[in-house]
Every structure is written in C-alpha cells, then in structure tokens.
C-alpha cells in the first residue's frame, strides 16, 4: 500500500509561509555564499596576498616581501637565501658580501609558509631574475617537526593562492567547502571595500595604512627598509625580553613536508644549474633537545640528492651572548654567522667550479664551533 501523507488542511496556512521563509533564507545564504566566494577567489589586490579592506599585520607583510621582491625586481644576485624567520633575521647579505665578495639577497620569509612557499618564492625569483650561482636554504633545526596546517586560510594555502600558478583571465571556483568558507568571508570584505571605494574620494590602500598593531611602519615604508637591508631584518636590542631559554623539546622529528619539499627544490636548482646549499641556522648552546632525527635525515638527503650540499657541522650551537632568543641571532651573532656562511659558500662554489659538487660529509656534528 502506497504511503499517503495525512496533513490536515488547516495546517497549510502555517506550513506554506514557513516553508517559503526557510527556502528564501536558504537561497539567499547560498546565493550570497556563491557570489562572495567567487569574488573572494577572483579579486586580486596588489599585492594579491593582502586584503583590500584592512591594514596587513607585520607578519603578513614580512611573509610576502620576499615574494614581492622576487616578482617585481630584476637585479642580479650571486646568492639568494631562502628560509624562515631565522634566515631573515640571522643572515645579513652585507656581512655575507664582505666575507665572500658575492652579492646576495635574503628571501627569508616565515616558517609558517613551509617548503611549498619557499619553492614558490624561488620559482618566482628564477622567472624574473638572472640565475644566481647558489641558493642557500637556511632554517632553524628546532622547527622541523612543525606540520603545515591543512586548513584553507592558513598562510601557506593563501600564499599559494596569491603567488602560485593560476589560470589568467578565467573565473576560478573555490576547491572545496573549506575554501568556500574562506573566500566567502574574503569576498564580503572585498565587496564592502569596493562599495566604499566607489563612494570614497581616496580609496583605502592597505599598503599605505599603518600595519595592524604597529604604528611606526606602513606596508610600503617597511618594505623600503627591508629592501635597503637586502631582505635582512635586524632584531632590536641584544636579547629578546624573555631571554634565550629554549623550549627544550625532548626531540625534533622531521615533518612529512620536508623530504619531498627539499628534493623538489633540489630538482629546480639542478634544472637551472644552480647549487642548492642547506645551512641550518645556529641555535643556542643551552638547548637540550635531541636533534638526531634531523641529522639522520640530512645525511640521507645528502646521499640521495647529488645536486644538494649540506654544510657541516649540520647543527651549529652559539653561546647565549650571540643569540637574541634561542633560535634567532643578535647583531654579533648575525655578523659571525653571515661571515662564516660567506666563507663556506665561497669554498663550495670554488670547489664546484673545479669538480662536480662534492658532499661535505664531515662526520658527526660537534660543538667545536661554539664561541
């Protein structure tokens, strides 16, 4: 027997308007989500990573300066440095050049970008600049265990959206529900900003506003300063307020992104005839963490990738007097590290000029270079 719903006729005056209301509300939200996510996905400000409706934070600005340099400059550098904040704050290209005679630019960004982000920066750089002689990947040994967040809206995904390859001219659709959520939110902001721009005499320019939480610099003025120091950002004072004590993780394992990511960097470098050098940034010598998994991985990597060189000793330990915090260096530490890196790179490049690049497998790491 077929099922026949028995809805009393007197209920219809309540049911029909209610169903209509729910339908209108649902359709309105769905339509808004579709329109705003399309707008959010496809509207690109300059720089594309920034939202056109709010001032960027200092971290956002620092995150994209290397990509903007890679995209918009054409100058030649002998060496470029890729990496996280420890790279940006611990390698001074001026000191490096003094020691090595090689021109250099620091493309160090933020650890939150991950290797995918460093690779994009390198690709942008190679597209717009004469090829350098060497690329140095400089990261702290303490963050190898950090997995890159999977959620859309997190820095690496947003960075890939902003600077990664995309179909020019065609309308892009958000990939999944997570990105619909992110782009719908962005789209609402963009929509309101565009509406305000239409009404305002001087549209809001996120590059001209003071950075969120920093009343000293705008995006543009900070960019000028960073460019003047060739991507290097000197940390203020001798030490950070909380000192140089390390969090002392028991051990640092190597997160899944590193092995394929570094191999991909090595392939790009190899395809362009550039030397890829891995130099871990020094860490404070009071640290008690076990870095053996990192060392093992570096050894395996060096064995498996013939076009990649790991500078030894793989982990450098500096005294607290040279450290700003446990993983960033202060001015003295920067000078020391930049000069020693300059010497290392010159040595490697001269050896490379004579023979195929050799591996520097100089035995287990020691603390002999501790000053």
């Amino acid at each position, binding site marked *: 027997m077929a099922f026949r*719903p*028995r*809805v*009393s006729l*007197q*209920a*219809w*005056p*309540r*049911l*029909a*308007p*209610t*169903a*209509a*209301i*729910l339908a*209108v*509300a*649902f359709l*309105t*939200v769905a339509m*808004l*989500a579709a329109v*705003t996510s399309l707008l959010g996905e496809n509207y690109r400000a300059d720089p594309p990573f920034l939202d056109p409706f709010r001032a960027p934070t200092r971290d956002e600005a620092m995150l994209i300066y290397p990509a903007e340099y890679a995209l918009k400059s054409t100058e030649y550098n002998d060496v470029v440095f890729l990496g996280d904040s420890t790279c940006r704050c611990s390698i001074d290209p001026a000191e490096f050049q003094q020691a090595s005679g090689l021109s250099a630019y620091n493309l160090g960004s933020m650890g939150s970008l991950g290797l995918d982000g460093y690779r994009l920066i390198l690709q942008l750089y190679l597209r717009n600049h004469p090829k350098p002689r060497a690329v140095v990947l400089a990261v702290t040994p303490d963050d190898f265990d950090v997995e890159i967040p999977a959620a859309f809206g997190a820095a690496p995904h947003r960075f890939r959206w902003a600077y990664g390859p995309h179909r020019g001219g065609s309308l892009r659709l958000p990939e999944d529900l997570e990105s619909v959520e992110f782009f*719908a*939110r962005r*789209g*609402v*902001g963009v929509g309101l900003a565009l509406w305000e721009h239409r009404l305002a005499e001087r549209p809001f320019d996120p590059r001209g506003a003071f950075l969120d939480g920093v009343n000293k610099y705008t995006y543009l003025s900070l960019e000028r300063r960073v460019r003047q120091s060739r991507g290097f950002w000197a940390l203020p004072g001798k030490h950070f307020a909380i000192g140089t004590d390390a969090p002392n993780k028991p051990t640092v394992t190597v997160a899944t992104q590193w092995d394929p990511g570094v191999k991909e960097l090595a392939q790009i470098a190899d395809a362009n005839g550039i030397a890829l050098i891995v130099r871990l940034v020094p860490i404070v010598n009071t640290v008690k963490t076990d870095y053996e998994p990192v060392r093992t991985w570096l050894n395996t990597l060096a064995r498996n990738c013939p076009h990649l060189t790991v500078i030894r000793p793989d982990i450098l330990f500096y005294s607290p007097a040279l450290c700003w915090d446990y993983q960033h260096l202060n001015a003295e530490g920067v000078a020391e590290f930049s000069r020693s890196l300059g010497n290392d790179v010159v040595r490697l490049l001269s050896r490379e000029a004579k023979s195929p690049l050799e591996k520097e497998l100089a035995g287990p790491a020691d603390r002999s270079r501790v000053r």
Partner: protein
Amino acid sequence: MAVCSLGFLFFCGAAVIVFHLAPGKRLRQVILACTSALFLAPLVPNLRSWIWFAAVLVGTYLALMVVRARGRGAVVAAAATLVLLFYLYLKRYRLLAEIIPFPLAMDMRLHPVELVGLSYMIFKFIHMLVDQWQGQLAPFNLWTYLNYQLSFFTITAGPIQRYNDFLRYWEEMDLQPSDTRESLLLWIRILTGMIKVGVLGTYAETVFHSANRTHVVPTLSEALLCLYAYPVYLYFNFSGYTDIVLGAGGLLGFRLPENFNRPWLARNVLDFWDRWHISLTHWIRDYVFMASYKLAATKFPGGARYWSYALLFFALFVAGVWHGTTDGFIMFGVLNGLGAAVTRAYGDVLRAVLGRQRLHVYLHSPTVRLVAIVLTLHYVCISQLFFATDVDRALAILGAAGSELLYLPSTLSSYSWQGPAIAIAIGTLLLAALWKSDVAGSIIERFVLWIGQRNGWLSAVLCLQCMFVAGMFFVDWAFQQEPPPVLYMAF
C-alpha cells in the same frame, strides 16, 4: 542558541513545520517539549548547571504540591522566601557577598552555575504558588509544569506568561483553523524583531560605546549620545527579542502577552512602566505591590495613601534592582521608585487642587501632554544611564552635560553650525512628530493595515525582510561576529 541568529530562524521554521505536520494534540505536545529541550541544551554549560536546573524544577514543583495539599499561607511564604534566597545566592549580589560571612562570590567563581532564565522561572513559580494558594490556578501536573517553565519562547527573557493562559493554548495545541495572513504577520514580526536586535539595537549600542569613553570627561555631544543611545539600544534589543518570541509562540499556537506599548510616549514614570516590560510590571503590581498594599491597608487603614507611595517606591525599586547586582542598578531602582511615588503623589495633589473637571481638561491639554512626555523621556533616559554604567561614570556624564549646557551660549559663538543645525532640525521634526503623534501613528497604522489586508503585499514584504535578515546574518558570519546577545537574557 542565540535568539537573533540564522540558526534560530531555521530552528523555529523546522519546529513549526514538524509541529504542524503532527496530527494529534499529544504528539504536538511532545514535539513542543522536545523543541524546548533542544533550544535549552546548548544554553546550559556544564553538568553542575544541569543538576541545579533539575533541583530548581523539582524543588519548586514539590513546593507547589505542598501548597496544593496544605494550602497554608505560612507554607507559601516559606517556599517563596526559600526560592528568593536561592535566587539571591545564584545572582551573586556583590553587596550580599560582602555582608554575609560565607564565601558566596568565591564559591560561585570556582564552581560557576549558569541557570538560563532563572529570574523568569522564579517569577512564574511565585505566580503559580500565590494563585494556587488563592485557589485561582488551573490544574497542573509535572508534565504541564515543566513545559510551562521551560517553553522555549518564554524561558530566556520572558514575557511572563500566566499559567492559566499557557494551559489554555497547551490544551488547544493550535488545532483550530488559522489563516495564511496571520502566519505571514507572525513571520514578519519575527524578522522585524531580528532587524531590531541585529541592526538597530547593535548600531545604537555601537554609538553608545563610541561616545562612552571611560576615563575621559565627555563632551556635550558625547554626554547626550550616551544619554539617548543606550535607551534606544535597550528598547530595540528587548522589544526585538519580544517580537521574535511572540512570533515564534504565535506560529505554534501560543498567544503570549505583549511586553511593549510605545514606551517613549509615556507621560509619567508609572505610565512608562505600564508600557515597558509590561508582563514584569503586571507581575510586580500583582505579587509585590498589591499583596503588600492589601496588607498595609488592612493593618493601617488611616495611612493607606501614604503606604501606597512607599509601596510604589518599593515595588519599582525591586523592579530596578532585579535587573542587576551593582550599585548602578540600585540607583536605577531608586530613581524609578522615586519617579513612581512622586507621580502618584502629584496625581493626588492635582486631583485635590483642580477638581475632577479641571483635571480632565488638564490631562487632555496637548501642551501638558507634550511637556509630560518630554520630561518622562528624559527622566527615563537618565535613570537608564545608571543601568548602562556605574554610578560614578553616570554622574560624570550627567555632570559634564550639565556644565556644558551652562556654558552653551558662550561656546555656541565659536561653533561650526552645520552639525548642530542638522541636530536642531531633526529635534524639531521629532518634537513635531511627538506633538502630532496621534496623527503620525494613525497614518502609519492605516498603511500597515492596508498592507496587512493584502496577502500579496505581505508576502513581498516578508520575502524582502527574509532576504535582508539572511544577508545580515551572512555578513555577521563573514566578519566572525557572534550573534548579538539579548541583554535581558542575562537577568
């Protein structure tokens, strides 16, 4: 669940559909009970709160049973006192915590209990207790009692529905024929309420907070903004909530008591309270003022008039203090009590001096009415300033406004007149509208009636409103804004 949210809109819609698809009375009652439970569940934060919740419900129900069995005044008084003490304990009155040598505040901080709608549950309980004692209460059992106390459209912030009314609709369960027009109007009311809370109230609150910069002596314009913006916020927030729950209740066949009746047109404080949070005022009138006045008039018949002033003060003071636990709310209560007592005394004096006929002429004079409305409006705004901030800040704002007004003529000469000219023009228009409020009101009412009689127009308005409200919630979501809270849910 926040009442002013897209979630509630869908929740309410789903509840209405499921409720009206159910064929019989019993099933509809079960559905309504489940709806209330679903609404309540996210509002009770922890197990401890659930236990207290159950204890309150079971305890108050047992008290009602005892009163039904024994029917003695002493039992009623004991139960009411016990419940009030429990309420004061949970309310965390600062003054009480300082006086009583018991670590009330500390205990509550360590073991927080959130009983949503506790005030309103107690109002309903005392009403049932007294009415049962007086033999006026309709029959009740645990099932009807729980549903009365926990019905989702009254639990969080009222309105205080009387049990007999509830039971009537509970037994009918909207099985009587209804028309589409009524449903459309109820949905329009829900959406209007959401716009009031989400847009108008939120905007007024933003204006108030931007003008009320603490640790800064306010300018005249800031002081005036503080004075007017907060009452506007309070009105839109609470009347918006009331519209939402009245609409939701109506769609499920429950006609709830109105809580607002153009309060800004009140001509004195008593009139104001008869137009603002009406269900609370009527509850206080019935269970605080009338009960105490009867007692006083019986014991001291000679001084009944003076007792009425004192008890009016007391009743409105209680209404004020009920709102909050700080000194600002005590001041709010004092001002309201004072306003009510003076109003009653002034009325008595006028009656004695003018006589019946001249009093009638006086009361119907448009000038007197306008002056009374403007004075009451400002008195209420001043009293609500204490509601909005603490006593010191409120006095600072009023002091700044007073001193600025004193020097206004000299400062006006060096003023840029564009802004004030607009303000004066708007003020004049508002005064004119107030002067002819009957005419303006009737024009608006006729227009609403005209639209209300045409289902096509109603549907179009409803559709636009629904799109606007959905868009409003979408933008809130995009900017990661929490749904605007209903202030009275905190009481």
